């Protein structure tokens, strides 16, 4: 029993960190420009397919593929921002929600007609690591470590570099930042790009250990919503913690009750947090 619990905990922790990375992309975009990116799920799916295509077609090592996915994700995000989001950034919420949702529809529409909705998987193995009762597939461990690395990089970028400080300034007050000579529009596009890249990379990491379709992103998008609310909307580091909480719930709950109850608990928790502690479990400082 204890061994099983320990194994589920490790499993949940590792996948939770990757969930957290995906949610970080969503929360960064919300924190900077108050836009909920409803194209988040399809972008995660595109990240999965990026790694998959790189591996099967170009024969790239998935980790090299991830780098490529990150760069392409950044570019895609800048394009999405410029085409779909920029015009509605000051409009009521509904406009930006629908604008990003239409991007979602376009990606899913084109994606299903190219890739169909059959399952794919990246057939890549790193062996596994055993420690007492706990056995961890190498790809999962690597994915979690990489996710932590990316989080650290994001933290340093936001805290230590000039563009990162611009991002935080624009998040704080767009008008004032503009008056201080910060190119607000370019910073917004950059932030959207970074958020997109994070989601795509998280998708790529998930694809290394789980099968997926072009529609799989939807489930991870909903998880990201829950995580983002757990960690406080707009708080990237909170998102990592929220991801771990969600991963642990997914790991532990099936030990005690049927797996089908997991989403019930997740979404009830989600609504309760929104109602009782909308700033998230970990405060909402940026």
């Amino acid at each position: 029993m204890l061994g099983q619990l320990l194994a589920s905990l490790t499993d949940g922790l590792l996948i939770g960190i990757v969930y957290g990375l995906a949610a970080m992309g969503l929360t960064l975009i919300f924190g900077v420009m108050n836009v909920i990116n409803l194209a988040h799920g399809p972008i995660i799916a595109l990240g999965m397919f990026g790694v998959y295509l790189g591996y099967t077609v170009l024969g790239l090592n998935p980790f090299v593929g991830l780098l490529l996915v990150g760069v392409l994700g950044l570019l895609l995000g800048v394009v999405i921002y410029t085409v779909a989001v920029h015009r509605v950034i000051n409009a009521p919420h509904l406009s930006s929600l629908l604008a990003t949702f239409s991007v979602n529809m376009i990606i899913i529409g084109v994606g299903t007609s190219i890739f169909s909705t059959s399952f794919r998987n990246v057939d890549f193995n790193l062996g596994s690591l055993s420690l007492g009762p706990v056995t961890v597939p190498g790809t999962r461990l690597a994915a979690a470590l990489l996710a932590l690395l990316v989080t650290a990089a994001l933290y340093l970028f936001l805290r230590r570099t000039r563009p990162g400080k611009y991002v935080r300034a624009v998040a704080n007050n767009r008008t004032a930042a503009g008056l201080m000579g910060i190119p607000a529009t370019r910073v917004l596009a950059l932030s959207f790009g970074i958020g997109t890249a994070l989601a795509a990379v998280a998708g790529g990491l998930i694809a290394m250990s789980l099968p997926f379709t072009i529609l799989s992103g939807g489930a991870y998008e909903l998880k990201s919503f829950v995580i983002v609310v757990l960690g406080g909307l707009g708080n990237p580091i909170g998102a990592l913690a929220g991801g771990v909480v969600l991963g642990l719930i997914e790991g532990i709950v099936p030990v005690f009750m049927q797996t089908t109850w997991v989403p019930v608990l997740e979404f009830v928790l989600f609504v309760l947090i929104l109602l009782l502690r909308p700033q998230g479990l970990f405060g909402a400082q940026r």
Partner: protein
Amino acid sequence: MKPLLRHAGIWIAVLLVLAVGLYPAASRSPITRETIFTVLLSVGLASSLNILLGYTGYVSFGHIVFFGLGGYVGFYALDVLGWHLAAATLVGGLAAGLLALLLGLSILRLRGAYFALATIGINEAMKAFVSNFEPFGGPVGMELHFAIYQDYGGAGQALWMVYWGTVLIALAAVGVSFLVKRSRFGLSLMAIREDEDAAEVMGVVAPQAKTWAYVLSAIFPGMLGALFFFKQGIVEPGSAFRLHLSIELLVMVMLGGQGTVLGPILGAAAYQRLRGLLLTSAFFKNIQLAVAGLLLLLIVLFIPAGAVGWLRGRAAVLRRILE
């Protein structure tokens, strides 16, 4: 003539729905009836959503939860309790209204993005819960015995009955949305939409008004859900709480013009017509979702007021006759 003209907006809307609704009765063709059934179902749902979205300015992303719940409760009443369809439809609407009342008292405190997210959460929580709820059949849902249609004079007759029910509810939803718009209650909703804090200062009891708007916008979807799933003969969590349908409703309201009576009607008809065209065309069949997405994007970016809002902005005459 004068009062007739003053209410031209509602007459145009009602006559439009009525004309479309009566058309299949004239042609007696089941195929036209099915097409128009889909359109009127969307008209009813979109008009209800508009009461919350268009007048009050709260974006409900999970409005389909009321459709699904009404469907399930109605189905339960028909299948297990053996009630008549009319009673089941009413109880479906009542259940949805009750849920909205309970939710309204809690989640309507949230504003903007937080509210939108909460409605998604509610829909997903409900779907996950129903999948585990044995009296409602759990993950496989429930199925009607075919014999039940005999009580209504055979399956063919039952389908017509569902159709007329839908026409009535669509008309009622349009009528209520007009009455709300012209009432003091409607004014307080629109004040909330413009500036909730200012509205409260002016004496609008915002929590109460918002809750009633939420309840009103939930009742019709609940009734339509009961009718729809009676017609389908089967209900399961995936089809009852389909988040995608919820977002399609938002698109319809946006397309026609939020906050107008005529808008959701036109938006629903146009959207369903477009979908039908794209689905049947060999070229667009695979990529129809992308085309619809592109169209939506263009509307959101360039005509955010929707078709009716745009027309109203063109000429004073149109402002008078289009509601």
